[in-house]
């Protein structure tokens, strides 16, 4: 699909909007519908559209596979690390009350951290899955 002019132009316009919407869903998830998982899959779908239109080499250039692997692990680690941090601060595992000056601020900080972890892991894993499938099909 690399030589379809209309697709390329429309996608160049649409992909930043999709990424912006993913960030909105990520950080506005406390007020509107959405959260880390939804933001992760929306971000991943932006990258997958990029892969479909511009080819996998271009997408690998902006999202290299080793970086994606690190990010997938980093998100899960961020989530688990938030739990360990609350343990070290003297509360139960994943009890965010201790992160802030009062329990409500602590809950807000904790939820933002773990939603970020969820989003990073989901987005990286989804894009990685697509890359792996394409690579496997190409190898045959």
């Amino acid at each position: 699909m690399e030589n379809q002019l209309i697709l390329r132009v429309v996608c160049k316009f649409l992909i930043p909007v999709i990424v912006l919407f993913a960030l909105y869903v990520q950080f506005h998830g406390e007020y509107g519908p959405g959260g880390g998982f939804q933001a992760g899959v929306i971000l991943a779908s932006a990258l997958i559209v990029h892969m479909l239109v511009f080819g996998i080499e271009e997408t690998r250039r902006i999202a290299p596979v080793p970086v994606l692997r690190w990010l997938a692990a980093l998100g899960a680690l961020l989530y688990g690390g938030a739990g360990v941090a609350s343990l070290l601060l003297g509360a139960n595992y994943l009890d965010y009350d201790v992160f802030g000056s009062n329990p409500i601020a602590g809950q807000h900080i904790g939820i933002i951290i773990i939603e970020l972890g969820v989003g990073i892991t989901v987005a990286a894993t989804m894009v990685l899955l697509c890359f792996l499938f394409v690579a496997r099909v190409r190898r045959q």
Partner: protein
Amino acid sequence: MLVTALYVALSRDLLAVVMVFGIYSLLSAGMFMVMGAPDVAFTEAAVGAGVSTILLIIVLSFIGRFEKPQPRQWVPLGTVLVTGITLVYGTFDLPPVGNPDNPAQQHVAPHYLTESAREIDIPNVVTAVLASYRGFDTLGEVLVVFTAGLGVWLLIGGPRREGKR
């Protein structure tokens, strides 16, 4: 939705099946939206209609477009029909949807709805429940996603080590 489901079951053109499956996912995303669950609808539209359709098309470019004609298999069809009828019969005993006296509305849901404004103070109760009250479950889900990616990587990805075990 019924029409798309029947088409998926009966057609032998796998590319069309994948497309219709995407439409089915989009329709069910609309159904979740109508039932007031935009969070689930987001996920269904992005994963069901988007990512998984793309993955299936990639796989189809590998295995070919058309299914081999096979004789009709009556035993699996009978098993599916019997199971389906039993499940539908079972739903007659379920309490009506949206009834405030249902067991699901009586256990912890009132606590979440009335107390999360005081304890967590974010407007989206779904996020409050998922991220804070049910933090362990969500941690498990993230680890499931991560493990799935790891499994696919180990199965079909990674550097090739031919002649070396």
